[in-house]
């Protein structure tokens, strides 16, 4: 079969990203997509934000003890990303895997800019990252997010942006922080060509959109 699609990063594999704020349903969709692609005999590798064996624990510990300022926050996440990219993601792409990512550097762009970092400085931190073939963005209004988070994990200090000092009230702080993050995502949608999906739709409906988009590329024979 003729290869019509060329990957955007030049590696053998396919790089697919799911972005969205906390509680938007990213991990659920990632698992569904993984299952569906594995059922079709594709090799799938999943990697989540802040999971490098080297640095993830340091971040958790530092957050717990409130040791981070905006700059060390940015740089630690960038180090976590670099470690995962070079040790997991790129090797998997080179071997022809479909790499499914729960968050990519767009998350850092949104969060760091909300924390007052210069956007060009943050972009530079990640400028060596390969361009994904697809970026799905789960678009969720803040009021729905709030209900989801309160109903599951509860409000977390950093997820509520309490470190930024918007408000000492958890609820208000979460609302302000997540709204500011959404603004950043909104700007990135166009700049990076996100496929934006209404996150309030049902789980199967969202899955169908994602699955079809991935299959469309796969049907071009890119991984055959």
């Amino acid at each position: 079969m003729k290869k019509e699609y060329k990957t955007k990063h030049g590696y053998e594999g396919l790089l697919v990203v799911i972005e969205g704020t906390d509680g938007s349903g990213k991990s659920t969709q990632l698992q569904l997509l993984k299952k569906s692609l594995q059922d079709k005999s594709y090799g799938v590798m999943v990697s989540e934000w802040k999971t490098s064996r080297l640095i993830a624990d340091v971040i958790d510990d530092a957050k717990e003890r409130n040791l981070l300022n905006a700059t060390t926050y940015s740089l630690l996440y960038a180090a976590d990303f670099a470690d995962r990219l070079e040790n997991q993601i790129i090797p998997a792409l080179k071997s022809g895997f479909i790499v499914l990512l729960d968050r990519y550097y767009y998350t850092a762009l949104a969060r760091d800019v909300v924390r007052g970092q210069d956007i060009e400085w943050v972009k530079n931190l990640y400028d060596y990252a390969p361009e994904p073939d697809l970026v799905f963005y789960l678009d969720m209004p803040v009021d729905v997010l709030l209900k989801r988070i309160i109903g599951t994990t509860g409000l977390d200090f950093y997820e509520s942006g309490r470190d930024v000092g918007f408000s000492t009230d958890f609820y208000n702080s979460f609302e302000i922080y997540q709204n500011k993050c959404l603004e950043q995502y909104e700007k990135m949608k166009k700049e990076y060509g996100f496929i934006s999906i209404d996150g309030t739709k049902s789980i199967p409906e969202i899955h169908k959109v994602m699955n079809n988009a991935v299959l469309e590329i796969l049907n071009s024979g890119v991984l055959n």
Partner: protein
Amino acid sequence: MAKLTEKHNYDGTLICVEGIDGSGKSTQLALLRDWLKSCGKDVIYTEWNSSPLICQTTKLAKKKNMLSPRTFSLLHAVDFADRLQQVIAPALKAGFIVLADRYAYTAFARDVARGVEPKWVRQVYDFAIRPDLTLYFDIDPKTSMERICFNRTPKFYEAGMDLKLSNDPFESYILFQSRVIKEYKKMLSEYDIVKLDANDSIHKKQVKIRELLQQILAEKGVAI
């Protein structure tokens, strides 16, 4: 936010020493510290890779040879950012003389010698405060190795073994440190760094350094 390219406006004074290992910079800084203290000045000392937030992780990762050049660079940037904001900047605001054993230039020299883009790493450290005086201790790699490795083998990263320049750690050390020195030399005019001959006597160097510092303090209206 401060910039490495702009003069700072703090009351304090920032003095940095740079150069490869075994160039005698720490000895000189210790002598300078004791002298300043005996003159009744407020002095603090800070060294590379010593922030409680991250230095243990970096040391452990180095021991296990886990670091790619980019992750290596970012972890040291975390360390630097943490010390800058917790130690260096507050001390400068309070009018201290801050003595830094290695500064951002160490990253520019080492990381670029490891293949990281010069522009990228300079941008990462964009938030650094410009020192009032930076001293570079010029030494050849062979003398450096004789001084620090007279009773041990060079360590993995110290010898740049991650670059696979040679399987022999001693030979690799010479090759890698030559690259580091080349990067340092490029920075002398870029950042107004004062070069000292590391082969001069301890006394001769200390006399010169005190002279330089006295000039800088005099410009700030501080007598010593």
